[in-house]
């Protein structure tokens, strides 16, 4: 049974897809079906709507989420009323989504349900913390399309990435694009005496000089980089951007004479919004990039079928991805892995 044991080592997991229809729900069902519930109390929620039987965008058939007896789940009240299982309502949370208040329930007779939980990073974090009172051992967050934010290590410690033909129908491109994301997730964690101080900063772009002084460049975010008149890399050994890392900031550092001496630091991989091109140029010039917090990528799942009907060869795809990513890659639908 691939990766289930690995998941059990963590108390929070997020499942994110690089595109719609990359088999994220299949992957979630696979996990939910195999978790040993007699050992672990599990709670599930989703950042978007999940478990609907028809895709809202492409109108293709979608797998539904099956919840087993003893699992906890959080969903909007309107979806709770449509559940096709028997469950005991245990909490009406203070979180709200566009579909109403978020409620939490414990499954009493297994079945299917639509799951649509809190939608912002902050409320997800509160949700994870709130599950503690029910003695939950593992929280699982189903991410939404192209929203990696739920996989932020601030919210969940481990993650599973779904990719597939829907992301790109060319194996070469698919492998390359996925590889880039995986590379970002795998960026090394900063080990430095200033790390704790940097973690406490809430916004802006900051530098650390050779004497470990932390300097505020007075920018609200990396987006305001145009207003700079001086070379911020001068005399610095670390440049830290709290918010989004953009091509502009990365190019600015790549173009400076100091590029080899500074380390670019971001909060975590979900804050990186640079193109692969900019990243490669930065690296070629000797640039280094690190993160303050890192999440553990447990596995990559693929769906070789795209909603437009295009099907890639599963074995070749898995093989190529595995080779490129140096990580286990699974086609869950094709291979009915044993328990």
């Amino acid at each position, binding site marked *: 049974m691939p990766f289930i044991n690995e998941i059990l080592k963590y108390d929070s997991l997020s499942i994110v897809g690089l595109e719609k229809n990359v088999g994220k729900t299949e992957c979630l069902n696979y996990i939910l079906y195999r978790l040993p519930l007699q050992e672990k109390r599990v709670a599930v929620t989703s950042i978007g709507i999940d478990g609907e039987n028809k895709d809202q965008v492409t109108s293709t058939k979608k797998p539904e989420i099956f919840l087993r007896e003893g699992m906890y789940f959080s969903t909007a009240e309107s979806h709770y*009323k449509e559940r096709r299982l028997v469950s*005991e309502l245990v909490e009406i949370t203070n979180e709200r989504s566009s579909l109403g208040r978020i409620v939490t329930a414990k499954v009493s*007779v*297994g*079945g299917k349900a639509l799951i649509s939980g809190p939608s912002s990073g902050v409320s997800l974090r509160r949700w994870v913390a709130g599950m503690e009172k029910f003695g939950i051992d593992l929280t699982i967050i189903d991410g939404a399309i192209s929203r990696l934010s739920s996989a932020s290590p601030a919210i969940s410690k481990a993650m599973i990435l779904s990719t597939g033909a829907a992301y790109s129908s060319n194996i070469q491109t698919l492998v390359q694009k996925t590889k880039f994301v995986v590379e970002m997730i795998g960026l090394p964690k900063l080990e430095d005496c200033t790390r704790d101080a940097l973690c406490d900063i809430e916004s802006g772009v900051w530098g650390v000089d050779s004497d470990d002084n932390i300097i505020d460049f007075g920018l609200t975010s990396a987006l305001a980089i145009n207003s700079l008149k001086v070379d911020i890399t001068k005399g610095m050994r670390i440049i830290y951007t709290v918010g989004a890392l953009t091509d502009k900031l990365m190019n600015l550092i790549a173009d400076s004479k100091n590029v080899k001496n500074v380390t670019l630091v971001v909060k975590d991989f979900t804050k990186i919004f640079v193109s692969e091109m900019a990243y490669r140029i930065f690296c070629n010039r000797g640039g280094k990039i690190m993160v303050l917090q890192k999440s553990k990528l447990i596995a990559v799942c693929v769906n070789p079928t795209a909603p437009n009907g295009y099907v890639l060869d599963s074995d070749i795809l898995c093989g190529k991805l595995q080779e490129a990513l140096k990580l286990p890659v699974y086609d869950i639908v094709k291979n009915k892995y044993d328990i």
Partner: protein
Amino acid sequence: MTFKSALDIDCGLRYMYETLEVMSPSGRKMLLSAPMMTAKVETDDYYGRLKEVHSKDCSKIAVKLMCLKDIETTLSRLDEGAVLDDIEFFEVKYLAIVSTEVRALLEEIELEAVKLPVLEDVVKVLDPDGLNIPSFYVYDSYSPELREIRRQMRALQGNGDDMTDEQRGELAVLLQRNAEIELKVRMELSQRLRGRAADLKLALSNLSFLDILIAKAQQMRMMGLCFPNINEGGDTAYCGMFNPAVKEVVAKQGREYMPVDISIEREPVTIIGANMGGKSVVLKSLALNQLLAQFGFGVAARECQVNLVEEVALCIGDEQSIVRGVSSFAGEILAIDAVIKKIRGGKGLLALIDEPARTTNPVEGTALVEGLLEVIGKVKGGFVLTTHYNIGNDKVKRYRVKGLRDGVMDYTLEQTQCGDVPQEAIAIAQSLGIDPEWIECTKRNINN
């Protein structure tokens, strides 16, 4: 006037509201829609309860009230005979449990200010297994048939692994039957609880009220507020009056707030004094404390007696409105005119007017203020104005800010007989560090 509309009066009431730690949304809603109390029976009853809460340790109750949810809509639906769903039953059960727990705590500390109805029977109906945990579903215990159906469902589906089409069909039938029985149970439960809707509503409103009282008592302790002596139809007098919002700002600057003593009888009151002497703050504090006393809060003074009024009118700052097309002078005069009309109409009004006619020439300005005081005569509620003009009227009570003493501002008020205004504007301007040449020229002109 409701508390919500009173928040628009710029006197520091909003600060009191924002620092009030009402835990529940229903408590906040109740507070905002509370009407201003205008009769002594009301205020005496209210402060009697607040005093009792103030004297007890209610911290355990406050924790329970944090979980109180506003379920008025659900209770109204129950009352009207609607069939509640699982979420609504959960809310009702939750309220009944919280109310029962708070009721026990009230008995424990012997607090009688708020009474809660007995709701144990409601909890029992919604907790057939006696688990006493805040959760709800249509329990197996409600119907033997339901228990049997669910057993079959569990057996059929195992862990949700692949089922045959036949099994799927069977499961769908069972799920359908389960839903039907659940609905029947919910109908019965709704029917049984319908008669309890009134008590549940009472519990919700009394718990919200208790939440407000606990928050007010806590605020009184935090800010050092006092219980007012309500003096219906009598005078209003404050000893050591302050304004908590201003006090906090002053404290942040590392300075000390100087409380003032003031009393208002039937005749109009004028306050004169130097610029930056805190005259406007006195007016705002008078407005604030009047409102606090009539909305059942602790009052910001060492001790006080307060006459009840029907309305508080605070005319402060610039009434200029480009939209309405009136200048600052016109805006102000029109606002004061409205006050006069209300007083003439016999309304119990506390009118507080900051420097009337300040935007026109001093000759006519003085005449306008003197005329105003004459026209007002004696008032039911109270009439206080601040001014820089020398007012000649003899039928007014006069206060002056002590003012600059050795370069330090003394904000306390003293009663005086003469209307001569202090001439400290230049000294104060100088202390602000303005252009020395300007000061020089000004002094030369005065001496000429």
